[in-house]
């Protein structure tokens, strides 16, 4: 009931849940051993940015556009190629449909003969 058991793959979520519980308990114990005597809203909890003025919390939030910037920059060529067919024009979508259907028929002709 719990287990997906094939010749080559076994997955028991119960084992995973027990492992998760053990790790959670370890994290909880580790965290509870932390120092509790710090003072909030003092230099002890302020963000330190090499002495520069730190902007307010809502302005520090990284926008979605900037996340994985390096990934997109290095794959700029691939993205240019992938975005080219996404014209937003329904005529183009149907052209693709005609071309793919024709290729499919050709494949079936070749495979069937």
């Amino acid at each position, binding site marked *: 009931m719990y*287990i*997906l058991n094939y010749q080559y793959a076994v*997955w028991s*979520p119960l084992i*995973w849940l027990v492992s998760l519980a053990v790790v959670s308990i370890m994290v909880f114990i580790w965290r509870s051993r932390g120092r509790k005597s710090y003072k909030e809203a003092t230099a002890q909890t302020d963000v330190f940015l090499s002495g520069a003025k730190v902007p307010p919390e809502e302005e520090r939030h990284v926008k*979605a556009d900037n*996340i994985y910037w390096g990934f997109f920059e290095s794959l700029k060529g691939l993205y240019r190629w992938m975005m080219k067919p996404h014209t937003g024009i329904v005529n183009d979508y149907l052209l*693709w449909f005609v071309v793919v259907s024709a290729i*499919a028929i050709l494949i*079936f002709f070749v495979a069937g003969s």
Partner: protein
Amino acid sequence: MEFLITNSPALIVAIPLVVAFIIPLIGRTGDKARNTFMLAAFALISFLVAILAVNIHSVGIRIYTFGATTADLAVPEHFIVPVRIIFEVDAMSMFMGIVVTTVTLAALIYSLQFLKGQPRQARFYSLMMLLYAAMMGLAFTGDMFNLFVFLEIASIAGAALAAYRTNLADAVEGGFKYIVISAISALMVLFAIGILYSEYDVLSMAAIAHFIQYTHLDMIALGLLGGAFVIKLAGVPLHMWAPDTYTVAPAGSTPMILAASYMSMYALYRVTFTIYGGFIDTTAIGWAVIIVGLLSMFVGVMMAVHQTDIKRMMAYHAISQGGYMLLGVGVGLAVLADPVALRAFGQAAMEGGIFHLINHVFYKALLFMTAEAIFLRIGTRDTNKMGGLARNMKWTAGFFIIGALAIAGIPPFNGFASKLLIYESVLKFNPVLAIIAMFVSLVTLASFAKVFYSAFTGAPMPAYKQVKEVPKSLIIGMSILAVLCIFFGLFPGLIVNNIVAPATNALINHAGYVNAVMGAVP
């Protein structure tokens, strides 16, 4: 009870059709009466689906012949072919019926308060019922012409739902694109049916499968059907309409339009396995399905991670996840003619693909609902403008985490179980394919981490400091799907053994489907 079971295939399609037309009338007496009527009717439909599912699980294929003296009289006396309209419900049809019914139930409950105070609610619910009836008809029909009819009903209802928010220009555009691609693809389906009918003089799927010779005309028909179903299921490179449409469809209708796309995937499986399965070189067709699957997985996920519109991102992920289903079933199709390979890994790959279908519909419906919940509260889908929403929308954030972890294939959620089946079985077929599938999963996780970080974490944006959690009906709708995502992940063996494996066997069992209608006909 026997009467109900016998007639349930017809009732499950007929009741929502009737309800769709009654809803506007009852809606005139008030929203509460309309909602109560609609939920009561859907409870009855769900009950019928449940008893039919139990019956199919225990006795196998069930036939319903319209206008016959008995429901199972598929071929009338003195005839050698079926001439009446037939519903043929096997475990695969029932599997799709369960998927569609569950999603519709969650979508209806979700929509109750989402649409509160908005105009034209009765039309919205009518269209949802119409779409549901069409999807169930698609799942149950054993007749090619009715497949076309239900495809058309689903297309019209889906397009109208996508364009429901007519005050938004992009909604009208999304609906327009959906109806154009649906109408053209349905015409190709009709053309293919015409070809098959001209050759064999029958419309019953079982009868066509019985007589088919795989002539050059049949190859053309298969190409047209394949192209039409791939564009409807948004397989790459015919996927471009999907982000435009899914992004703009409101509330609970997005999961239903998504489910309608997977009904086209079901139709593709039905055509390739049931109608053509016994005659064609399945290796070539299997590889064609695998290639479409791989392209969908890769292009879908790479486009998704680049998006900043939360629903558009999810729409690209829907394309990507569809690729997993095509990959799994494609591997099964490729080794269909090789009993040793089929037993060794082909059947498990198919089970993985089919299991992933139900899992994906559940977690993607949940994710679309969380996106709509955010849109309801802050009025934008742009993740650049979001931040800190978890502080005020705790339930929505929780449901998003469940959906995101499930789609990324993280244990113990449902996506993990089906992806594991796909990885392990596809690895035996071709390790490169499994590696690509794992890479796609990794990028999926990165993509959802990006959205979670930008939308839910950090300090609340000044404009959203007063944002509140969504109303209860939305939370209940999302809860149903979240619980299913966890349940399917915790008890995968139960689901695979009782729902997925019978569906896979029904697809493979070409002769069983044909004989249920054709019987001892020579």
